Structures are given as C-alpha cells and as structure tokens.
C-alpha cells in the first residue's frame, strides 16, 4: 500500500490549515455561504437535509486497518456511530458539525487520509478494481497508476474549476469491476501488438440525466505518455465543455455534441502541440518508487486446497453457503479474496457501524496483510485471506453482523441515500431497497447473479441505469413513483437499461419485481443462465408483461 513521504504529508497538512482558515472566515461572516460553498465543496463538505455531510477520499478504495480504525473513531466521536460506504469507493458521514470538520480532517491527516477533491467540479477520487493485486485476471497491478494519477490530479491548478465534476476509473482486467465505461475517463490497461502494457482510453461515459457509455478515443497509449494524454483531454474539456447549463456540462455531452471523431481529433491536436517542456516527464525512478509500494505481500507457498477449510464447510452449513457467494479466486494458491457484504437485511445498503469497522480492521490486520478495499457495489473486500484461516474470518465477521451471504445476488443492491437524507431526492430509496431485499432474501440464491440498482432521482447516484434491474424515484404531482429499467450493466459489456413503461407506486414495486423474478425462473434455459443473459436472449417483453401484470 502506498505510504506518504514528507511531501505528500505536507500537502495534506497545508490543505487542512487552508480549510481551517476558510471555515474560520465562514464562521466569522467574512465569507458568505455563496462564496464558502465552492470552497467546502472542494473539500467534501456537502449541505444535506439535516446537517453537513463529509465525504472522505479512499484513493482507489484501499484502506489499512489503522485508517479503518480512524474512520470508526470519526463515526463515533463526530457522527452517530456509523458511516456510509459509497459507490465511489469513499465513505460519507452524514451528521457532522461544520465547526468539527477541520479537527476531523486533522485526525484523518494523522493516518494519511483527507477529503481532497471528493466533491466540486474537479478531478475526483480515482477508482479501480477492488481485487487489484489479488486477481489472476489482471495483466498487472493497476494501483501504481492509480496513485500516479492521484498525485497528478491533486490540486492540479488548471483543472480545479472544470465545467463539471470529473471521474477517472482504471482497470487492468478484462472483467471490468470498476465500471470504466460509465466514467468520464475509463482507463483499461492492456497489451499492444508488441506485448507492451499501456492504456486504452475511453472517454465520455456517465450516468445522471443523460446516461452514456463511453467511447474509445485511443486504442493504446504508452505508460510514459498517459499523463500527457490526460492533460490534453482535460484541457480540451476545460476550454470547450459547456458551462451554460450544468446538466449539459459533463464531458459526455461535449463528446456527443462534437461527435467522438471530432473530439478525438481535438485531443490529438492538443497532444501533438505539446512542447517538450510541457510534457509531464515523470521520471522512471518515480514510477518505480511508487510501484514498490504495491509489491505483492509475503504470500506463503500453500497447496491449492485446504483440509481445514473443507472440514469447516462440511460442518457448518452457514459457512458453506457463504463461501458460495462471497469468495473470489486469488492469484496465489491457498488464498482467496473475501467480499464482506454490507447488505444484511434492514440496514441502509453500504452502512457500517464503528464497531463493525473495527472488526474489519482487526481481521485485515490479523489475516489480510493489513489491506481492505471498498467496492463500488458498496461492500468491503479482504483481498488476501488464507483458505486455512477462512473459517476464523467468517466466524468473526458473522459475529459482528457482517456475515451476509449474498454478494452479487439480488439483495446485494446498490442504493443511494434518497429522500431520507438528500435534498435533491424525488423519492425515498432506502425503504424500497429494504423491502426488495426482504422479499428476495427468501430465494435470491435460486435467482443467481442479479444486480438491482436504486436512485432517488435522475442524478443516478445509485447507478440505476446500469442495474440489470434499475429503479428510479420520480415525482409525479407530489407523489413518489418508481420507474423501472431492464438490461443495464456496468461491466465490460456496459449498457444503459431501457425504461419499461409508466412508474409504479412504492407499494407496487416489490410485488412487480417478484413477478419479474418468477417469470425469469420460469423461462430461463437452466440455472446457469443469469437473469441478464435470459433478458438478452429473449428481450424485455416477457419481463415487461410480468412487471405490469397487475395493472
């Protein structure tokens, strides 16, 4: 894991001091809310329905146990004893007093954490595959490049006031777990014909009110050039992105309005025009220095199977069921990656209590090389667990209420805060999520992999467009309605779901989805055919019929 040196440390300290000054000027009245807003927004401080919300950056979703423990402390001391892990692999605290925020930031700085660029119209926290460094699927570990991009984008003075926020995601695997095609820039690490590793650059994906899957503007660029390409793309966007209408300000609109071909030409021209002195010229020593932090930990040489593990499975049915859903293959024999589901029943999806965070920290310290990851599905990953020790890990998790065995199943849904917290919401999303989870928990194993995503309004924080089933809260004459989409996906076959028809009332949503699920069980070829595959094979019609069968 990356560790700060004196420079990184100083940057964060300077930022805390700067923000403390800004808060003082706000509290003294020298700054009014209008002028304070863009300043606090650049530091992750939102004004929500009930209080200020603080969003803390978790660069590329990776945390040490010490950092997780600090988050637990913040939740306890300054919030109501819990935090909310987000689809951006960050964490949010919903009930923080403005006057406490500089102190919270200082405590975070002590463990190399911050809230820099977690909001505002700047380059946001870069995200990646939660199994980076653990999966055999990647061609190399993408995290060194995530860290390089983090440093390059931190306080980049030219791109601090873009037309709109800007999100970059990176993956080095063919299976895309980072949703790179629905980001402003998606970077896909891959080989060129000569076998060198470089980047495919995808630009202009995004959700919100105009959901679009990004386009490849460069098939392959060399690592040495990637920052210069990013500078070129950012400059074209900064100069030409629309600023007249915030709903048309994301780079996806610029790419669409210019056409991807013309946009690509402009980026090419900007890149070609860069003089030698303008190039970033990151020294190879620096790439090596950063890469060193991400060297594989000291894995043991172990057999691929574990007698202890097999025995525990035979003796504990709950454990055996959990292993069916919550494990992912590890690149090293005898290890596995565990996904801890933050979607038990009757809890807001993505929430964890301070006590749970401490349990996760302890487990990571004892069993997972001090390494934790946050996923964009709002779960937590323990990337490197020995099969021999898996049962202990499971027991500790289960004891803390973290034993939900539903990863990638229907009840493992993504859900935004909705009307319960968010002042932009049209409808509640958490209660709907809970109802759906309760209904599906009875048979979500039969249903297999099924992604349900819920947003409380068109801003799409809950990624509803890319859910296999998407649910969007809309407001019709003061009443909450829910619009259903089918067929979305966020992976390497990214696709925006299709709206099926008129919105449903809250009480109609769960029964309607239950009919859809029953229809799927009835018409799938066999139990290996996923919901999304049946849908893609047969089209939406049978499911749509089931959805509206009651009306």
């Amino acid at each position, binding site marked *: 894991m990356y560790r700060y040196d004196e420079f990184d440390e*100083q*940057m964060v300290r*300077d930022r805390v001091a*700067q923000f403390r000054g800004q808060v003082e000027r706000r509290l003294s009245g020298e700054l009014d809310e209008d*002028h304070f807003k863009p300043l606090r927004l650049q530091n992750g401080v939102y004004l929500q329905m009930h209080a200020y919300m603080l969003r803390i950056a978790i660069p590329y979703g990776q945390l040490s146990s010490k950092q997780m423990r600090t988050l637990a402390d913040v939740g306890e001391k300054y919030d109501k004893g819990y935090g909310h892990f987000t689809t951006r692999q960050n964490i949010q605290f919903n009930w923080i007093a403005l006057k406490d925020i500089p102190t919270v930031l200082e405590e975070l700085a002590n463990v190399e954490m911050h809230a820099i660029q977690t909001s505002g119209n700047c380059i946001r926290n870069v995200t990646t595959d939660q199994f980076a460094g653990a999966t055999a699927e990647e061609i190399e570990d993408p995290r060194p490049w995530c860290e390089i991009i983090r*440093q390059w984008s931190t306080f980049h*003075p030219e*791109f601090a006031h*873009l037309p709109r926020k800007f999100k970059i995601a990176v993956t080095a695997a063919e299976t895309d777990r980072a949703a790179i095609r629905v980001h402003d820039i998606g970077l896909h690490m891959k080989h060129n014909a000569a076998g060198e590793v470089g980047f495919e650059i995808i630009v202009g994906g995004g959700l919100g009110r105009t959901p679009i899957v990004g386009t490849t503007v460069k098939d392959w660029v060399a690592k040495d050039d990637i920052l210069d390409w990013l500078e070129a793309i950012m400059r074209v966007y900064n100069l030409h992105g629309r600023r007249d209408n915030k709903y048309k300000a994301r780079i996806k609109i610029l790419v669409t309005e210019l056409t991807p071909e013309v946009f690509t030409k402009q980026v090419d021209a900007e890149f070609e025009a860069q003089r030698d002195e303008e190039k970033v010229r990151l020294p190879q020593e620096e790439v090596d220095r950063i890469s060193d932090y991400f060297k594989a930990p000291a894995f043991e040489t172990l057999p691929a199977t574990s007698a202890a593990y097999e025995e525990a499975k035979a003796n504990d049915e709950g454990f055996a069921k959990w292993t069916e859903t919550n494990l992912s293959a590890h690149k090293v024999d005898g290890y596995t990656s565990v996904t801890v589901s933050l979607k038990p029943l009757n809890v807001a999806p993505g929430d964890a209590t301070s006590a749970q965070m401490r349990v996760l920290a302890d487990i990571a310290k004892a069993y997972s090389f001090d390494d934790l990851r946050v996923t964009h599905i709002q779960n937590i990953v323990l990337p490197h667990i020995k099969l021999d020790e898996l049962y202990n890990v499971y027991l500790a998790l289960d004891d803390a209420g973290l034993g939900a065995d539903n990863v990638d199943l229907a009840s493992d849904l993504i859900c935004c805060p909705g009307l319960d917290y968010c002042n932009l919401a049209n409808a509640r999303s958490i209660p709907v999520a809970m109802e759906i989870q309760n209904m599906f928990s009875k048979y979500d194993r039969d249903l297999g992999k099924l992604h349900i995503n819920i947003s409380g309004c068109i801003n799409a924080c809950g990624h509803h467009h890319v859910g296999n089933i998407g649910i969007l809260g809309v407001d019709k004459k003061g009443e909450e309605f829910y619009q259903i989409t089918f067929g979305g996906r966020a992976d390497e076959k990214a696709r925006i779901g299709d709206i099926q028809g008129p919105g449903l009332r809250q009480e109609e949503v769960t029964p309607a989805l239950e009919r859809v699920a029953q229809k799927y069980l009835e018409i799938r070829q066999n139990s290996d055919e996923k919901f999304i595959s049946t849908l893609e094979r047969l089209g939406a019609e049978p499911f749509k019929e089931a959805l509206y069968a009651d009306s």
Partner: protein
Amino acid sequence: MPTVKFENGKAAIIEDAFACVEDDQPIPTEGAVCVSLERFKTDKEAILARNGDIGVRLVPDDDALELTDVIDRLSLVEVTFPKYTDGRAFSQAQLLRRRLQFKGEVRAIGQVLRDQMDQMARCGIDGFVFEPTSGEAPDVVENAIADFAYAYQRTSGAQTPIFARRHVASKNI
C-alpha cells in the same frame, strides 16, 4: 481596484500603466493600451505600428493561440474570470506561458478571489486585480500563494514538482 503584481515571492501594488480601450473608443496615439482580442485582430497593423506597450484582454471564449505570431510584441495579456467557477482562464494562462512562452504579465481580472490565487499563480498568472475583503491587497496575495509549500504538477509557476524533488539526481528531469 488595486492591481497587485507578484514577482520573486513578493507582492506589491502597481500603477496600472495600460489605458483600457473599449471596442468603440479610438486608440490613443501615445502610451500603453489594452484592447480586446477582437479589437486587436481588427486594428492589428495600426496597433503594432504605434509607439507604446500593448496589452490584449481575453475573455473565456477567446482562443489564446490566436496570439501566437504576435506574442513577443505584447507586454500584457489579461485573462478574465467572469465568475470564479469559470476556469477557462487557467488553461488560457497555461497556453500563454507554456505553449507560447509569453514573458510579459498575465493579469487576472473579473471575479478574482483569494482562494483561487494560488491556482492562478501556478498557471502563470502574476497580476491580480481585486478588492480585498479584509487586509492589504499585497498581503492577501502573498498569504494565498503561501497556502501550499509544494505542488505535484509541472505547471507554469516557478515550483519544481514534487516528483522531481524526490529524484533530484535524475537525468530525466
């Protein structure tokens, strides 16, 4: 409003020597003038032929690269922040400094706020026209620019980027 020049780590109020000539006004025969890019393009020959320093005022829609062939004749380029949220002037300043290697003054006008002065300076802006909300204008500029000791990027400011500081001995820097 005072104009503050930031040079060699020090800020000072300067006398604005440039007469700002609106597009419908005649250009005086003598003295330093500052005109819009539009006006400059229309009366280019006449402006270049006169005696006196030349300044050009850019608005965010302007293409700074239109100044490429005359850049050495200019003493001042003003870049405009119509609202502090409009960040196009940052890119214009970078283009002036880094692409065109402009050596004169790049002056920020419009909504020039304390909390953006560091970013402005790092993009190569060295003149600031603003009314301080408290304190003396030069102190405001100096304090704002002192907020951060280091920078990660190689931009237009004088700072050595962090990655280069880390590897002082490298040939590649």
